[in-house]
């Protein structure tokens, strides 16, 4: 058998604990009250009775039984609130207004609860509290007072204690239930939303109450996590379908070519040509695979651990040198405006590939006769690297799309590449917390990569010898 859900919640368990503690404190409180009322009262009775005993004995100076008997009779007649008893060694009542008792010395509580009292003790005397003692000749003397008042007070206290304990418990439990029901409902809402999401309703989010309490915090964290997961999942789905689509075409072509060569049989040269062509096809497919894996690895961020200072100025100058002859062969003009001695924290190999991709993009997609520019400067935003060309450019509607994997503009379907160059560039930029954006170069395309100021290597600042000023003039002034 399982407990109802309410009783299994943490807040309810806490409530029980508190209820227990409250009851305990009520108990202590009552113990104190008891001690200071009932306790005090009994002590007063005891005191009075003891004094009366002493007085009796003092009043019978001879100490003889007869004298005592006389005194007791006198007192019994005089003070009706006291109860007296004097009995001899054989248990015969000698004086007083009580029946014979077993001769026990010390404090005694007498009561006749079960049967009506054997003597008329007055309407009040259902209980007597008093002291007994041995006196001369084995006789026994007892003096007591009615303990009715005491008893009544005791009963009243007991009753109020039980009541307040009951009320405390009920209130604690009800309060606890109310307290745990609210959060429980919120938790229930969260887990219901989670179940829905697991059930396939991926767009579902946990509702916020708007009060900004802990549950809203938790819910918004969970929602943020869900959004991130969804972005990743969409990316993954996109990649899978892209891979499937982009690899199916070349694989189909490859299969057709091989089948054709096999069917025609022809001569050795034709077969060799078919082989060579097929190997080139396979290489292209493997190349695409490699690029996808590389992008995935870059996106995983593991390369960050190896970040070191990279001289961006020198890296870009090297790339311009490298691509100069390539551009010249295409009768394109490659020029540079690179501010010297700028560096960032990063991965040299990946940064090389990032800018190589951008420059190659310009070389491959722009016609002969155009000019390509590579620039680097320090601006208020950070280090700004620019690769621009005066070619046909890309309509602004596609400026974001070209970063998607395998995205290729219809106009560039025939140029070399696998449609992953800019995706890889974007992944590398992301790894370096840099932004990459396309804009119109009027005419042509302008790609700007901005490495935010915080990413800029400490050494750069140190080398420049300046702390705050980040204008383009500064490094020019400091350069050797």
């Amino acid at each position, binding site marked *: 058998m399982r407990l109802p859900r309410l009783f299994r919640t943490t807040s309810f368990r806490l409530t029980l604990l508190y209820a227990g503690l409250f009851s305990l404190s009520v108990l202590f409180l009552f113990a104190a009250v008891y001690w200071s009322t009932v306790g005090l009262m009994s002590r007063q009775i005891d005191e009075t009775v003891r004094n009366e005993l002493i007085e009796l004995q003092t009043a019978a100076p001879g100490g003889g039984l007869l004298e005592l008997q006389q005194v007791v009779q006198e007192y019994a007649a005089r003070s009706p609130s006291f109860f007296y008893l004097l009995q001899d060694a054989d248990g015969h009542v000698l004086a007083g207004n009580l029946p014979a008792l077993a001769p026990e010395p010390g404090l005694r509580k007498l009561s006749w609860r079960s049967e009506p009292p054997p003597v008329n003790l007055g309407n009040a005397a259902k209980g007597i509290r008093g002291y007994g003692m041995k006196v001369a000749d084995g006789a026994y003397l007892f003096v007591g007072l009615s303990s009715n008042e005491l008893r009544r007070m005791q009963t009243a206290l007991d009753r109020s204690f039980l009541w307040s304990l009951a009320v405390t418990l009920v209130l604690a439990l009800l309060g606890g239930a109310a307290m745990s029901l609210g959060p429980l409902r919120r938790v229930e809402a969260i887990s219901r939303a989670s179940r829905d999401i697991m059930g396939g309703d991926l767009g579902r989010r946990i509702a916020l109450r708007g009060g900004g309490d802990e549950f809203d915090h938790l819910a918004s964290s969970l929602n943020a996590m869900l959004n991130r997961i969804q972005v990743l999942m969409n990316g993954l789905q996109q990649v899978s379908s892209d891979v499937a689509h982009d690899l199916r075409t070349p694989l189909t072509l490859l299969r057709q070519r091989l089948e054709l060569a096999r069917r025609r049989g022809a001569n050795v040269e034709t077969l060799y040509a078919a082989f060579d062509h097929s190997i080139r096809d396979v290489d292209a497919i*493997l*190349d695409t*695979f*490699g*690029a*996808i*894996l*590389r992008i*995935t*690895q*870059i996106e995983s961020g*593991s*390369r960050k651990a*190896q970040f070191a200072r990279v001289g961006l100025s020198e890296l870009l100058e*090297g790339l311009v*040198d*490298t*691509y100069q*002859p*390539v551009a*010249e*062969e295409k009768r394109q003009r490659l020029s540079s405006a690179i501010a010297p001695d700028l560096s960032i924290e990063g991965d*040299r*190999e*990946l940064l*090389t*590939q990032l800018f*190589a*991709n951008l420059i*190659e993009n310009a*070389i*491959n997609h722009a016609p002969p006769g155009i000019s390509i520019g590579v620039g680097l400067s320090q601006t208020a935003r950070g280090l700004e690297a620019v690769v621009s060309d005066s070619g046909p450019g890309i309509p602004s509607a596609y400026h974001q799309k070209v970063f998607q994997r395998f995205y290729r503009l219809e106009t560039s379907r025939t140029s*070399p*590449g696998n449609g992953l*160059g800019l995706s890889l560039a974007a992944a590398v930029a992301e790894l370096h917390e840099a932004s990459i954006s396309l804009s119109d170069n009027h005419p042509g395309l302008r790609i700007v990569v901005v490495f935010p100021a915080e990413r800029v290597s400490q050494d750069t600042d140190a080398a420049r010898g300046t702390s705050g000023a980040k204008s383009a003039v500064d490094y020019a002034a400091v350069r050797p």
Partner: protein
Amino acid sequence: MKILLIEDNRETADYIFQGLQEKGHVASVSQDGREGLFRAASENWDMLIVDRLLPGMDGLSLVHTLRGGGVHTPVLFLTALGGIDDRVAGLNAGGDDYLVKPFAFAELIARVDALGRRPLQTAVETVLRVADLEMDLLARSVRRGGRTIELQPREFRLLEYLMRHAGQLVTRTMLLENVWDFHFDPRTNIVESHISRLRSKLNKNGIELIHTIRGSGYSIRAPA
């Protein structure tokens, strides 16, 4: 050369083994990391070709252990496609070169030849010569037939790499990695462009020394 190939994939191992034998090398295959380590350390080899992923013991720790034990046989790592961290890790562990699978066979042979030559070049050379072409590494100058040829730094590095491997096949990838430090496949013909520029500078007063090996790479050598 006597080469130990430590590779667990039988087909890849056969492919490399046969190719090495065709090129006149004596090859032996080990398919397990521990066995490979034992054989690499206990026999004399001119070169080790080690796959990164091996049963028993992975390639990295194998080479690391070997180097720790004072074995300095040249090591060529074979790494999986797309592993961008593999190269650095491989070289750090004590590998001398790396090759990404799948590779063209000519590429592997070129790497093997380049690595195999290494020990001969431990002696400090200050002047490299191929026919009437002379490179002074200290003065950073190049002369052909007594005439000085002005080269840009990148062209100098390109020619130096070719001349250090004179008579051998140097592939496009080897040039990209060693001259440009490019560890990816560029989409433009960088190497071809630079070679053609270098050729035009070198050939002003002499015959062609840089030969194109079709589909594989280049080789600088004196005319036969």
